[in-house]
């Protein structure tokens, strides 16, 4: 079904919901590259005005990628909770936006609503919202997950400690890891992007992290971000796998380009659950997503990159993850050109993921060919802190020497906690106090060379 909007003497026609969503999306380079962006400023606002009047019911009747062709669409339609949807079933997208921002909508209301929302509804409403709307609505959400600690409570900010090394050298990894722990980082996960997917190399790293977590009794979890097939093999061989990682996208074809399917993800999920390694919770999956991944894999099917991204959250939601991380500035300037586009996309991803009921974190990051710098990242970091982001990624000095991009630093997390009065996950915070890294007021204490954490390497 086609949609129309008239501005003055010009009538804009949008062939279907997919086109309407794309034209209504705030400008970003990836949609222009894909040829789906609005061509003029007026066309974009016309699409947004048109979208505001579309009933939410339409999203259940008009799949933007055919049901028969795409298992992600089938997942979205087959698992939609009509009961939860009932509260908002009479709204248009525009009314939904106003309602989300209203005082009657509380954390509990949003938690009950989440299973009734499809990714397309969530993407649609986000396209009508300004950055401050995305922040204030996300702030109302609370998505709490747990494995060896509890992540996502209000007033908390967790960090993934990312001690990458270009050759996976265990001592090189350990040096960055200890640096991070002594800066109070690592409650979301200690997660390494390995330089190779070689199972033996991955196992070496898994065992090193497991040994360290046991030796110092750290209430956190580890993850090596290798391909799901490698993790499956390692779990069969009784390697100490806490979390199962996988990059995912919002179309079946994107996931195929990553070498996974919903069935494979289910297999990984069940295998990790069976290991029963969590102590305070059973969220065992870690997913990464990012706007542009479907276009990059030539698997977007004419859907704009932000809508594709939210569809990936429907995939994630199925497996009750501990962590979902959008790698927003990592994919490159052909998808998000500059600081403005990266900041907007990060706030969208965080809001959309949270509304869908996911424990969203953000890799506050950029590459050297993007039009962005540390000041843009400071802005984004602060906005995400205000929005109530569950976790951020931290690397030593903001410089990832393995993936060659800039993320946030351990210092950045301390800044955000201090500026906004945020604390780490409660179990991890208690550990930091026991280790005399933080005091009870959350202040970072001076560490001496005699600290036990320095013993393994010094």
């Amino acid at each position, binding site marked *: 079904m086609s949609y129309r909007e008239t501005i003055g003497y010009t009538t804009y026609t949008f062939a279907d919901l997919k086109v309407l969503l794309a034209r209504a999306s705030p400008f970003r380079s990836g949609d222009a590259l894909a040829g789906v962006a609005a061509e003029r400023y007026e066309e974009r606002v016309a699409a947004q005005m048109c979208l505001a009047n579309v009933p939410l019911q339409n999203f259940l009747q008009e799949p933007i990628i055919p049901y028969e062709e795409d298992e992600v669409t089938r997942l979205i339609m087959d698992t939609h909770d009509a009961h939860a949807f009932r509260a908002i079933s009479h709204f248009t997208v525009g009314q939904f936006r106003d309602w989300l921002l209203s005082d009657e909508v509380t954390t509990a209301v949003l938690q009950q609503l989440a299973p009734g929302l499809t990714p397309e509804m969530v993407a649609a409403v986000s396209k009508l919202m300004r950055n401050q709307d995305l922040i204030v609505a996300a702030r109302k959400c609370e998505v709490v997950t747990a494995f060896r600690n509890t992540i996502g409570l209000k007033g908390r900010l967790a960090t993934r400690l990312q*001690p990458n090394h*270009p050759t996976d050298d265990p001592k090189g990894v350990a040096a960055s890891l*200890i*640096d991070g722990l002594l800066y109070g980082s690592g409650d979301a996960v200690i997660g390494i992007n390995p330089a190779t997917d070689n199972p033996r190399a991955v196992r070496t790293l898994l065992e090193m992290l497991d040994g360290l977590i046991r030796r110092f009794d750290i209430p956190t979890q580890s993850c090596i971000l290798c391909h799901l097939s490698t993790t499956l093999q390692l779990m069969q061989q009784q390697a100490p796998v806490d979390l199962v990682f996988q990059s995912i996208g919002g179309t079946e074809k994107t996931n195929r380009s990553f070498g996974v399917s919903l069935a494979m993800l289910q297999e990984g999920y069940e295998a990790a659950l069976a290991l029963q390694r969590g102590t305070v919770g059973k969220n065992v999956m870690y997913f990464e997503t990012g706007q542009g991944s479907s276009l990059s894999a030539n698997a977007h099917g004419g859907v704009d990159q932000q809508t594709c991204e939210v569809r990936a959250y429907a995939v994630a939601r199925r497996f009750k993850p501990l962590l979902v991380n959008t790698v927003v500035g990592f994919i490159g300037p*052909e998808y998000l050109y500059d600081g403005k586009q990266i900041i907007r996309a990060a706030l969208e991803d965080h809001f959309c993921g949270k509304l869908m009921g996911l424990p969203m974190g953000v890799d506050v990051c950029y590459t050297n060919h993007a039009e962005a710098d540390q000041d843009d990242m400071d802005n984004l970091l602060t906005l995400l802190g205000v929005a109530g982001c569950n976790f951020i990624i931290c690397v030593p000095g*903001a410089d990832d020497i393995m993936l060659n991009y800039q993320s946030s630093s351990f210092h950045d997390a301390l800044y955000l906690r201090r500026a906004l009065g945020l604390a780490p996950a409660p179990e991890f915070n208690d550990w930091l106090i026991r280790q005399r890294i933080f005091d009870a007021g959350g202040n970072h204490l001076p560490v001496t060379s005699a600290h036990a954490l320095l013993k393994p*390497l010094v």
Partner: protein
Amino acid sequence: MKSDLPWFISSNGSLPDPWTSLQRFTAARIALGRSGVSIPLSESLGFRLAHAHARDAVYSSLDTAALQESLHTFGLPMLTLQSQATSRQQYLQRPDLGRKLNEASREQVLAVRTQKTYDIAFILADGLSAMAVNTHAPALLALVLPTLLADGYTLAPLSFVGHGRVAISDEIGSLLQARLAVILIGERPGLTSPDSMGIYSTYNPTVGLTDDARNCISNVRPAGLSYAAAVHKLRYLIQESLRLKLSGVAIKDLSESGDTLPGI
């Protein structure tokens, strides 16, 4: 504490970390110390300088005159070409345009085409760091071209491409009727590697090929893969590609692990 300072000043304000000895295990920015919870200024400025070098590399241009001057001893015809991207800004946002020659360049290549076919077409392109190619390509080609000529390979005219991506070597190689296209191109700069050059070789270059049809030698620079090591790998790839009549994963890499393709 110095007695001539006011009572509230006890130090320069930053607190060092007592684990600088761990820096020997990694090039990562560890044990930076802190001013309050912030990164000390010297580290902050050092980071800014590294980023400035990377940014300057992205916006650098191919020094075609100097490159051609240094390479004219090989007696090969030279072509100065441009992709369809007309600015760096556009190049960064539209990788598709960087993979195609503009009309004038296409005609220029067609004008030098004869009945002749060649074994190898060498192409130099700016990619994401022209500085890398300006710095490393002359030395590398000075090592590799004489050995290829001595081995009896025929070489197509040398191409120099502005705003080029890896896949533009498919179009140039195919127009020049070369069996193998070898492109030297600036890689995405890292904070500590603004001048890293990549080399991609493609057998039977044809428009529309994807990266799995290529072999890649990455991180060519004195602090990364040395010229000698890169030349050794490149000669091996050229020999094997022309012998087996293919390129890509089917050619076993000499190194222990596969080189990854950075985003260029």
